[in-house]
């Protein structure tokens, strides 16, 4: 069984590798360094959100407000990122602060009331969208400083800066999940909440942390997006939550809580990114793109499951 669950963990790896192989054979453009860098760049935002929601799902929760947090934090950061106004650190802190605050608000309502996370974050999803529109008066916030725009658009030694952020975030999130007490407690809370409480874990505190971290990572995603498109857009990020949750689940995080890895989530995000990139490369008609995308996502997880079946 143990052996098998290990295989299960690698199943999605194999599925992913298989898909990459097929793509590499069908178009020579796929496996070029420039294309791989582009995929990494395109995947970065979804991956950041997916990391955040992985924490949440591991504790047995869900966060639908990711996309709205992207919009609010993006608009908030952009408002302080006009050239020659504030130093770069100000928009960054404003954005990250806004995201953490919204995440903490989610955590607070979820732990203090008995309202299910689905409803709370559906509520804050709507509220957040409204806030983003109010903050920006419904208009994109543009004319941002070059330093700010570097975050999403710059390169270091030819590697797009978002990829660097992605890798750092991946490392940090993995460490938090696997090497810290907080991470251990997340698994415990999601694995069996009453038992975790009876073991002396302050469950509410763990949940507060988790939603706050998710808000923080959404803010990072929001800043990256804003900087990449050089505008803070109030309608940005709509639907991002589903992509992020999909990446986490494809990567093996179970919605019933207690399991999941950052590596799995990264693979999940890459899988989605690779498919959408290559459908463009192969110039599949846009209507059919959606069909193919859906089929491949289901297919990959079926393939992953084959190893787990018993």
């Amino acid at each position, binding site marked *: 069984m143990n052996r098998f669950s290990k295989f299960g963990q690698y199943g999605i790896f194999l599925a992913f590798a298989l898909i990459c192989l097929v793509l590499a054979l069908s178009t020579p453009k796929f496996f070029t360094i420039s294309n791989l860098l582009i995929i990494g760049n395109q995947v970065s935002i979804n991956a950041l959100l997916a990391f955040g929601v992985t924490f949440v799902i591991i504790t047995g929760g869900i966060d639908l407000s990711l996309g709205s947090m992207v919009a609010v934090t993006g608009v908030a950061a952009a408002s302080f990122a006009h050239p020659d106004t504030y130093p770069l650190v100000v928009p960054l802190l404003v954005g990250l602060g806004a995201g953490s605050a919204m995440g903490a608000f989610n955590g607070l309502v979820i732990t203090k009331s008995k309202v299910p996370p689905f409803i709370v974050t559906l509520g804050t999803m709507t509220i957040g969208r409204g806030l983003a529109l109010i903050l920006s008066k419904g208009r994109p916030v543009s004319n941002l400083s070059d330093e700010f725009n570097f975050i999403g658009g710059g390169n270091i030694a030819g590697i797009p800066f978002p990829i660097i952020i992605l890798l750092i975030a991946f490392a940090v999130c993995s460490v938090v999940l696997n090497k810290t*007490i907080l991470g251990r407690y997340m698994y415990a809370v999601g*694995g*069996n909440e009453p038992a975790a409480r009876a073991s002396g874990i302050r469950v509410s505190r763990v949940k507060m942390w988790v939603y706050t971290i998710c808000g923080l990572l959404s803010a990072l995603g929001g800043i990256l997006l804003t900087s990449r498109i050089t505008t803070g857009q109030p309608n940005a990020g709509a639907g991002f939550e589903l992509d992020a949750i999909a990446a986490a689940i494809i990567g093996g995080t179970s919605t019933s809580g207690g399991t999941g890895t950052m590596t799995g989530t990264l693979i999940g995000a890459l899988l989605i990114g690779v498919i959408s990139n290559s459908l463009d490369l192969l110039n599949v008609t846009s209507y059919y793109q959606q069909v193919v995308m859906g089929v491949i996502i289901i297919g990959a997880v079926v393939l992953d499951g084959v190893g787990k079946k018993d």
Partner: protein
Amino acid sequence: MSDYILRVKGISKSFSGVKALDNIHFDLKKGEVHALMGENGAGKSTFMKILIGLVVPDSGEVLLEGENLSGSHVTETLKKGISMIHQEILIIPELTVAQNIFLGREREVSGKGGILSGWLNDSEINRQAAALLDRMGVNIAPKAKMKHLSVAQMQMVEIAKAISNNAKVIIMDEPTSAISEKEVATLFQIIRDLKAQGVSIIYISHKMDEIFQISDTITVLRDGKYIGTKRAAELDQNALIAMMVGREIDQMFPEATQPVGHELLSVKNLGRAGKFANITFNVKSGEILGLAGLMGAGRTEIARAIFGLDHWDEGEISIKQTPIRARTPREAIDRGIGYVSEDRKGLGFIPRMSVKDNITLSSMNNHRKGGFINTHSEQSVTEQMIADLKIKTAGTGQHVTYLSGGNQQKVVIGRVLLASPEIIMLDEPTRGVDVGAKFEIYKLIRSLADRGMAIIMISSELPEILGLSDRILVLSKGKQTALLSKAEATQELIMRYAVA
């Protein structure tokens, strides 16, 4: 043909390469009670699930009255006359008692095939359930939602469900693990009645005295292998244990080696509306206080209140003369209280976490380097605990789900111990645990007391209450009816106070 109703030939089953059952033969006579014995993980439940059609064997066949059942779905097996009380309580919490009893065999308004087939007739099942429960002498309302019952009541409903199927063969997989003496007596009466009607029973239990009370024949499995079948009359307890574990166990209950010390915990007039009232007792260092009572006596509720899992309304709890009130388990643990729940799955371990992660969960503060985990110290402490408690596991990284019941229990005890408690409350610590492991746990409990801890042990098994406790507190319907010393306590006396 023969007087065998059920014949099993050469059943084998592996889970991911590990053999759980190896070429098992088994014959069941009409109207007999056939005990199936073996240590935790011997393969008893797996074998029974194969009989009922929930697990598909790799090879072998099952014949019910000569008819080959191999490959039948559980739906068909149930119809053909085998029913089963499962080891883990399998109920639908949101449905009522009657709906649970008749689940899968719903009564339809017009019987099968009529125009109203598929339409539920709940008043009919309520009536039938009421009659059935009444006949069993159990006081449970058919319309009560299952989730509002105590574990013991749920178990009685499961028994009712199994016997309502008019089966020819009833499998009972540890039916008494969650119920107390009174209900056990009820169950045994039911079994005798069924036997008289020619129904065959396969009975699994880790309680030795029950086996000799009720069974005609005993079959023993060990590590998935068939060891032997004997008439119950040919065996005594020691001989049976030897068959099961492959060695003799001389003395079941270890004696105290250290004198009792100063008072650690005292409870005065503790009360919680509707649950218990006026509870007063103390426990001293080195002492084991047994808590006896029937199901629903309120023993678990008292422990939960002390541990901060439930609130309480009146009275006082003190540790070493200092009054305390734990509002959360964290506070209780910090005050030196440990609690091993009767609900091992619900409040005990985290199934998908490793042995190591479970064992250190309450004491992560001892393994912190800032916010980070000191894996090194964690690993060594876990290995030490595995050795101390003789936990049988493939390693520190093994998921707890895959351990046997006794070893799961030891993991929970290990977790509680690592938080360095002075007072430990053990609620049904040997529930579902095999003799060998029981013996280990008894030794462990006594050695903890000898190390100076105060122990409160809640148990529905009178032999272990009598064998292990220094003093015994008897509860009845939320009230304390006696506080007996080891010398004066007898099984009859405890029962007398328990029903008072």
